[in-house]
């Protein structure tokens, strides 16, 4: 991509952002779930009130990770196979920038000030990317193949799940230093945390367990046995329940965050991966990779209430916050 084209995209982004702000103030944003379908190369935006897809945006090849800006105006999507980070304007519903990033950009997270962090699967680093210029602002060496990133409360820390070194890195995003490693189970892949970050939940794909980590004591406090090949995890803070997708079992395990007691196992579609809870809705959404559907789960009673068809190969999900609440 030429510099001129980048500049045009940036200008477009600013214009779209201004237009979007006006539009969102008029309509009021509803809580939405972003569904990234890797095979179909599209982003579907699902309305969490009606559980229907509101709109779709075509993406470049093989999109994987997704995160949403604090304002809800932008989404950041990684494409490990083409080494790209796409910036999507959710208001104008267009891709406004495409930045070449690293070697296999996979995980992505956004901090409280809108800083975008990308984990590079084969370079073993997490980098903060300036989404307006595509430049690397900070680079933190972490464990092998960082597959997920979680920001600490108030962004004081940054946690990465390291798929190939079986641990979690705790880093200081300001100094750019890795502070500690906490060993977890075999093949850790995804992470969720309570909002105060006193508990972190890490799924271990190869061990079929969840490690519950206390980031203050740097210890894995207890483990929860779940289904086969757990790939995704989310917490519903209202009920204190943790949901884990079991990719090879085609189910979701629901357990109590306090003691790890398994409350229910919910059958969903084939090969479920990503899971998110739409805050305040009492509903969780699960990407069924093989079935090309998103399952809707009522967290309180652990029942699947519906399935929404989406593009082929949905893996990762993100929540776009409801700005009117």
């Amino acid at each position, binding site marked *: 991509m030429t510099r001129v084209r980048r500049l045009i995209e940036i200008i477009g982004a600013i214009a779209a952002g201004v237009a979007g702000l006006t539009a969102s103030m008029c309509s009021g944003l509803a809580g939405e779930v972003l569904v990234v379908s890797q095979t179909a190369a599209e982003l579907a935006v699902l309305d969490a009130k009606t559980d229907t897809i509101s709109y779709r945006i075509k993406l470049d090849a093989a999109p994987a990770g997704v995160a949403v800006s604090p304002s809800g105006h932008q989404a950041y999507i990684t494409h490990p196979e083409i080494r790209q980070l796409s910036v999507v304007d959710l208001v104008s519903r267009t891709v406004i920038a495409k930045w070449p990033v690293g070697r296999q950009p996979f995980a992505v997270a956004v901090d409280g000030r809108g800083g975008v962090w990308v984990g590079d699967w084969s370079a073993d680093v997490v980098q903060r990317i300036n989404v307006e210029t595509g430049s690397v602002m900070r680079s933190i060496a972490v464990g*092998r193949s960082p597959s997920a990133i979680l920001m600490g409360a108030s962004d004081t820390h940054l946690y990465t799940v390291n798929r190939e070194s079986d641990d979690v890195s705790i880093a200081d995003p300001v100094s750019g230093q890795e502070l500690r490693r906490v060993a977890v189970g075999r093949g850790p892949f995804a992470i969720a945390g309570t909002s105060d970050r006193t508990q972190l939940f890490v799924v271990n794909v190869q061990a079929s367990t969840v490690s519950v980590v206390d980031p203050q004591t740097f210890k894995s406090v207890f483990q929860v046995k779940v289904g*086969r090949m757990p790939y995704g995890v989310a917490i519903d803070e209202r009920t204190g329940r943790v949901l884990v997708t079991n990719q090879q079992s085609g189910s979701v395990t629901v357990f109590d965050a306090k003691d790890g007691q398994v409350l229910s196992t919910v059958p969903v579609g084939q090969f479920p991966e990503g899971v998110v809870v739409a805050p305040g809705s009492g509903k969780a959404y699960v990407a069924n*990779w093989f079935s090309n559907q998103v399952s809707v789960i009522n967290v309180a009673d652990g029942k699947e209430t519906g399935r929404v068809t989406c593009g082929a190969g949905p893996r990762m999900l993100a929540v776009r916050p409801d700005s009117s609440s």
Partner: protein
Amino acid sequence: MNYILAVILGIGSVMGSTAFAHGPTPQKAEETIIIAAPPDAVWAVLKDFAGVAGWNTALKASKGEGGNTAGATRSITLKNDGQLEEGLDEVNEAEKYVGYRLSKENVEVFPVSFYSATISVKADGDGSLVTWSGRFYRGDTSNFPPDNLNDEAALNAMTEFFKQGLAGLKAKLEAKG
């Protein structure tokens, strides 16, 4: 310098580990077949994890340890004499399915670096419907795989393997009459 070292380490990881697969896009395959035999008869054949070469005509031989319980292992020998190691994840008697995964890849004989798969049987009229589905990654999970180890090669290999296997299963069960 560091970059070059990292590249070398990266390549080493691709060659040496089945678990290094998640950066690229996973692929899927699903094949089904109708068999003129009751589900119980099909299931009795399917659930014998180590005895897979008894029905899968894409194989020359198979042997295993640990019976039909989770954690059992088997070694399968392909027609090209290449060997793969597989691990059993679940035999579900109630729902009649077997879940298993590749535990030791050999991309020179089978161009897939990791797969997990499920084979199930359900009643279909007087006969059975057998469904075999798999999720897998190409043989070379770097961003620039050669043609023989790319997504298409993996998809072709898995699809052909499932088709041959199901045809073999059907032939065995229908021959029994």
